């Protein structure tokens, strides 16, 4: 039984338009987020994963960057076409987002309590007492001990881990259906990273939320994601359940990524990097963009662009994937 997906990204392209510059960074991206799942989007810096995430809520830097085609279907609305006011109502209330560097992402002039209250009041009228109750609940859900103390504190008084939890609480106050998390743990200490990830996983269960997780860290993907999409030069090259993709990566790039990650007990002591460099979005090769770095390239690869095709349990964009 196929459920209707919560969020459907269809043929989304996002480009840069400036004086004398015009090219797409995100190219024809397609994926869905279903209820109660954690979808991870993985890739190196510059592959377009953050930009894709930002564009869902229209948070990308809009004068130079813009959505050049495609749609973002949420419920029965296309978020690329709704009014600014409707988009504002979705932000924080139905889809929330948390960001990479929590220390600079919170307004330094206001207390945690005031920030949380503002986020609540942006969507519904509540009195101070109710706002406080919700705030305390969400701070606790985000894993903060002694939430009452935190309400009166300013962001500069918080450690990295605590500020990230405050951001999570901020995202929770209006009970959104989806949380987009853009590299939520990258700026944190390793020990705190695991805790935050665990919390996110538990929140999915406790609140029945879905999470779209943007990361370049495969370890993070392995620990909490259900499905994953691998992005390269602005397109998805492989997408499927984490089990399948990790267990048997089919796209040469995915294979390379996983081979480049040191793993305990895997036997081989060597790290195998992927040769070559990522092509720039304004200078992409014709044909498959991975062709110059691929060990499995065939003649077709230099002249034709591969489409995303189902290979059993996983979708792959390759003319010669691993079987």
């Amino acid at each position, binding site marked *: 039984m196929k459920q209707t997906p919560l969020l459907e990204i269809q043929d989304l392209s996002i480009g840069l338009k*400036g*004086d004398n*510059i015009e090219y797409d960074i995100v190219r024809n991206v397609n994926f869905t987020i279903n209820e109660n799942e954690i979808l991870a989007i993985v890739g190196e810096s510059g592959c377009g994963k953050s930009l894709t995430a930002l564009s869902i809520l229209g948070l990308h*830097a809009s*004068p*130079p960057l813009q959505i050049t085609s495609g749609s973002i279907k949420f419920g029965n609305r296309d978020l690329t076409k709704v009014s600014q006011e409707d988009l504002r109502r979705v932000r924080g209330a139905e889809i929330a987002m948390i960001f990479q560097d929590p220390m600079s992402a919170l307004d330094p002039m206001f207390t945690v309590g005031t920030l949380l209250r503002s986020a609540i009041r942006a969507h519904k009228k509540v009195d101070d007492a109710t706002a406080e109750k919700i705030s305390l609940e969400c701070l606790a859900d985000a894993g903060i001990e002694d939430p009452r103390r935190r309400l009166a504190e300013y962001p500069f008084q918080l450690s990295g881990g605590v500020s990230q939890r405050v951001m999570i609480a901020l995202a929770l106050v209006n009970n959104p259906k989806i949380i987009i998390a853009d590299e939520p743990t990258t700026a944190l200490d390793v020990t705190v990273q695991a805790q935050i990830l665990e919390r996110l996983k538990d929140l999915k269960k406790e609140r029945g939320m879905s999470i779209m997780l943007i990361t370049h860290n495969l370890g993070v993907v392995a620990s909490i994601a259900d499905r994953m999409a691998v992005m390269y030069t602005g397109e998805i090259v492989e997408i499927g359940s984490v089990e399948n993709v990790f267990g048997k990566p089919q796209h040469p790039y995915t294979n390379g990524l996983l081979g480049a990650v040191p793993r305990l007990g895997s036997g081989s002591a060597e790290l195998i990097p992927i040769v070559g460099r990522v092509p720039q979005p304004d200078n992409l090769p014709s044909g498959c963009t991975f062709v110059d770095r691929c060990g499995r390239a065939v003649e077709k690869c230099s002249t034709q662009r591969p489409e995303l095709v189902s290979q059993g349990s996983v979708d792959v964009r390759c003319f010669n994937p691993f079987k």
Partner: protein
Amino acid sequence: MNLLHRARRNKQLVSGSVLATIIVVLGVFGPFLLGDYSHQDLLLGHLPPKTSGYLLGSDALGRDIAARAVVGIRISLFVAISVTAIAVIIGTAIGLTAGYVRGAIDNLITLIVDFIWGFPLILVAVLAAASIGSGLLPVILAVGLVNTVAIARVVRGEVLGLTEKEFIVAAKAGGYSTVRILLKHLLPNVMPVVLVLSSYYVAVAIIAEASLSFVGLGAQPPLPSLGQMVSDGRSFLIMNHWESTVPGVVIFIMVLSVSLIGDGLRDLLDPRLRTAVERASSK
């Protein structure tokens, strides 16, 4: 080169430089061309501009306004530039030392600097005039002092920020001598800020000198300071306004050109102001 190209595109820098060049040319060559500025002829007073022999008219004592104005430009430029040059050299030296060496020396310097910094320039100049008498000297002393202190303050702040950066820590670890670090590593990084700041202070110096001459405390007659010329023309505003207007406009253009250059420099040298397109496409 990227910098030169951007410099040429910067409207403020270009317009400011054009104006400044005109002013400097007038100030340097004007007096030779326009003749005697102190020649009085009471019968030829209050002549309007474009009278033969009196390009911009004459003042109450029959002196050629144009001739006086260009000498006035010289005086203003001389005061402003010499004072600012000295202030930059001494102020930067003080700021570098205080910011890098820290400790007791820094505390002492900061104490004195903050002490002087709190006082408005004109007040200091008035006090200097009260103390040693009117003339150009108190103006120079006061403006010099305040500008030196202001620059020292900013330089020190910059140095404090820079000493944490790795390349300085690396230099120290490499055993470079203090002087070498100061001159070869810190100074070039501080120069852009000092440059922008000094353009602002040249403007301040020009206005200060003019204001003081206006109230009678600056350059004394027969030296034709622009501020004094404006003051002299006060009583004749209704009938012969050019006697005040001309020197006033000259001052305005001088200050405007310097401010534009300063703004242009700042836009050019501040990496944060690169356009959004440049930033987005460098990701």
